[in-house]
C-alpha cells in the first residue's frame, strides 16, 4: 500500500467517523486539513530529550461510551466531569448561567455555540499546523470541554474540570479544553487529569486559553495520568492587552510524558506566570518545554520550574523565553531547578533565551543537584530521621512553587501526591 493510498483511507475513516458524529462541515474540514498536512510537519522540539521511538499517533477515530461509575469524583459547585468521551456531570450554578457563562462538553458546544467555538478553536492560542502532534490532535479529537466567560464577568469560585482517561477501553484520549475569557473577566480553572483501567493508551491532551483584554485567568492543573499512559500534554494561552495568565502545573503523570506549555503575550502590558512542579520515578521519562513568548510591548513573563527525579527516571526542563522584535520594555525571567535523588537519575535544566529586542530585561537561573548533605546533617542532628529530613528538604525545595498555587484544594492534593511519590520512590 503506498502512502498516498493510506492517506486517503485515513481521511475517509476520519470523515466517516466525524459525519457519524453529526459534526458541522467546518470541523470536519479542519480535521481533514490537519490530517492532510500531518506528514509534512515536524514533531515538537524538546531539546535534550529523545522520544523518537514513542508511538504518539495511533490513527483511529472512534466513538465509545464509558461507564459513568468509573468517575469517582467528589461533587463540586462549579464542575464538569468526563470519563473518556462521556460527560458524567456538569454543575453550573444558575447565576453563572444567567450571566452567560458556558461550561459544557466540547462537541455539545460545537452544536450549541458554533460561532464561539469556531472562532477560538485552534486559531489564536495555537494552530493545527504548528507541529505534527497538534495536527494529529485536531484530526483525531474525540473529547473535550468548552468554557466561555462573557465580557465583564468575574467568577469567584474555581471551575473544576475533571478528566478521567478510560483505560478500561482500548482507545486514545484526544481531549481538547478550550477556555475563552472575555474582556475584563476573572476566572480560575483547576484541571485534574487521571486514568482508570489497565490498558495502555495514548493521552493527547490539549488546553487552549484565550485571555481577552484585561482578563485575568488562573489555571492550576494536576496531571496524574497512569503508568501505562503515554502522554502528550500541550497547554497554550493567548493574552491580549493587559491580560494576565497564571499557570500552576503539577506534572505528576506516572508514564512517559511530554509537556509543551506556551503562553503568547500578544497584547501590550500582558503578563504570564508559569510554575511547574514535576516528580518522576521508576524508569519514567519526562520532557517539558515551558515557554513564554513576549510579543507585545511591556509584557512580563516569569517561569519557575522545580523537579525531583527519583530512582532511574529522567526529567528534562527546558525553560524558553522568546522575546520577539518590537516587544520593547518587556521582562522575561526564568528559573529551572532539579533535584536528583539517586545516582541513576538523569536530569537536565536548560534555560533557553531567544531575544530579538534590545530594550528588555531577561534573566535565568538553572541548577541540577543533589540534596545538600550539610542540610541533612543539620536536620538529623535534631533527631529527625534521614527519610523525614530528606522529605523536609524536598518539600522546601518544591515549596516556592507549591505556595504559589492559588487553589487550596489543588495545593493540598499535590502535597499528598508528592508525599506518596517520595514514600514509594526511595
Amino acid at each position: 500500500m503506498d502512502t498516498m493510498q493510506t492517506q486517503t483511507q485515513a481521511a475517509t475513516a476520519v470523515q466517516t467517523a466525524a459525519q457519524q458524529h453529526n459534526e458541522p462541515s467546518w470541523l470536519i474540514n479542519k480535521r481533514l486539513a490537519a490530517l492532510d498536512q500531518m506528514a509534512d510537519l515536524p514533531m515538537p522540539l524538546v531539546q535534550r530529550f529523545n522520544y523518537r521511538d514513542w508511538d504518539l499517533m495511533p490513527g483511529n477515530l472512534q466513538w465509545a461510551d464509558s461507564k459513568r461509575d468509573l468517575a469517582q469524583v467528589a461533587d463540586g459547585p462549579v464542575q464538569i466531569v468526563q470519563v473518556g468521551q462521556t460527560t458524567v456531570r456538569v454543575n453550573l450554578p444558575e447565576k453563572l448561567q444567567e450571566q452567560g457563562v458556558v461550561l459544557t462538553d466540547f462537541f455539545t458546544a460545537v452544536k450549541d455555540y458554533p460561532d464561539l467555538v469556531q472562532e477560538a478553536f485552534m486559531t489564536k492560542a495555537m494552530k493545527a499546523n504548528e507541529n505534527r502532534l497538534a495536527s494529529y490532535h485536531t484530526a483525531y479529537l474525540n473529547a473535550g470541554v468548552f468554557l466561555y466567560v462573557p465580557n465583564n464577568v468575574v467568577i469567584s469560585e474555581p471551575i473544576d474540570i475533571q478528566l478521567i482517561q478510560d483505560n478500561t477501553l482500548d482507545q486514545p484520549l484526544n481531549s481538547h479544553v478550550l477556555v475563552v475569557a472575555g474582556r475584563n473577566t476573572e476566572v480560575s480553572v483547576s484541571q485534574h487529569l487521571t486514568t482508570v483501567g489497565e490498558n495502555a493508551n495514548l493521552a493527547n491532551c490539549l488546553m487552549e486559553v484565550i485571555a481577552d483584554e484585561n482578563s485575568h485567568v488562573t489555571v492550576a492543573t494536576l496531571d496524574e495520568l497512569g503508568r501505562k499512559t503515554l502522554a502528550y500534554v500541550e497547554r497554550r494561552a493567548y493574552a491580549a492587552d493587559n491580560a494576565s495568565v497564571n499557570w500552576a502545573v503539577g506534572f505528576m503523570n506516572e508514564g512517559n510524558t511530554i509537556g509543551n506549555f506556551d503562553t503568547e503575550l500578544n497584547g501590550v502590558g500582558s503578563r504570564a506566570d508559569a510554575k511547574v512542579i514535576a516528580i518522576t520515578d521508576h524508569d519514567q521519562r519526562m520532557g517539558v518545554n515551558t515557554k513564554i513568548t513576549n510579543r507585545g510591548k511591556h509584557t512580563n513573563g516569569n517561569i519557575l520550574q522545580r523537579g525531583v527525579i527519583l530512582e532511574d527516571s529522567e526529567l528534562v526542563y527546558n525553560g524558553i523565553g522568546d522575546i520577539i522584535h518590537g516587544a520593547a520594555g518587556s521582562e522575561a525571567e526564568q528559573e529551572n531547578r532539579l533535584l536528583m535523588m539517586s545516582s541513576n537519575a538523569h536530569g537536565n535544566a536548560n534555560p533557553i533565551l531567544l531575544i530579538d529586542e534590545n530594550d528588555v530585561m531577561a534573566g535565568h537561573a538553572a541548577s541540577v543537584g543533589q540534596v545538600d548533605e550539610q542540610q541533612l546533617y543539620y536536620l538529623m542532628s535534631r533527631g529527625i530521621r534521614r527519610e523525614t529530613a530528606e522529605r523536609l528538604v524536598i518539600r522546601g525545595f518544591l515549596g516556592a512553587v507549591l505556595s504559589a498555587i492559588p487553589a487550596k484544594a489543588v495545593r493540598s492534593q499535590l502535597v499528598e501526591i508528592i508525599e506518596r511519590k517520595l514514600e514509594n520512590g526511595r
Partner: protein
Amino acid sequence: MATLEIKDLHVEVTDEENQTAKEILKGVNLTMKTGEIHAIMGPNGTGKSTLSQTIMGQPSYHVTQGDILLNGESIVDMPVDERARKGLFLGMQYPAEIQGVTNAEFLRAAVNARRAKDDQISVMDFLKMLDKNLAILDMSEAMTERYLNEGFSGGEKKRNEILQLLMIQPSFALLDEIDSGLDIDALKVVSKGVNAMRGDNFGSMIITHYQRLLNYIVPDVVHIMMGGRIVKTGDASLAKRLEKEGYAGLRDDLDIDVALVDEN
C-alpha cells in the same frame, strides 16, 4: 543521671585537596555528667569544633582510636540522628539554612522525632511549649514562621539554636561558640536560655573564646585544649586566669610543646 565519656579520642579528617588524612584530635579524655557545665577554651584551630562535631556524629570526622560513651554505651558507630534521639544536642557554630521549611514545622518534626509514633505532640501542646520558650528568649512568633535560618542574622541564628535546645530538652548540649557575634543584650538572653535548662537532668559543654559568656553561665569545670588535646582542667577561675595570661603564657607555664596560630 546521664554520663558522657570521651576516652583517648583520636580523630582524622581527609583533606579534600590532596586526599591525605590529617589527625586533629590526638587523644582527648573527658567525662561529663548531667548537672554539670563544662567550658572548653583553646586557641583557633585546636580542634574544639572537631570535638563537638565528632561527638555529634558529623560524618567527615573519623574516629581512629578511642571511644565515646553515652551512659556507658559506645555511640561512635551510630548515625547522627540516633545520637540526637539518645539525648545529644549540638548548637552549631555555623547552622545550615533550609529554604521552604518553616522554623515551626522543623521544630515540631524535631520534637516528634523523640516521641513514639502513637504519641506525637498535639498542636496545642506544641504551641504552648513554643510560646513559653519564645518568651524566655525574647523572640517574636514571626521568627517561627520564617524559613529555617534563611536570611537570619548571625545573632538570630544563635538565638534560634537555643530555641531548639529549649524545645528538644536534650541530656547533653554541646554549644559551639554560641556567644560569637552576639551583642551584649543577646548574650544575656542566650545565657538565660541555657541557664533555664540547668538542673540535674542537663549537662552542657560550652565552647567559647571569651570569659564574658562564663560570667553569665558559670561553669563547673573549665578545660583548655591545645594541639588536639585537653592540656589543663580546672574550675571557673582557670578561665579568668587565661583571660589575663593568654594561651602563650599558659602554655609556657605548663611547658606544653604546641605552636599557636599567630606564631606561625
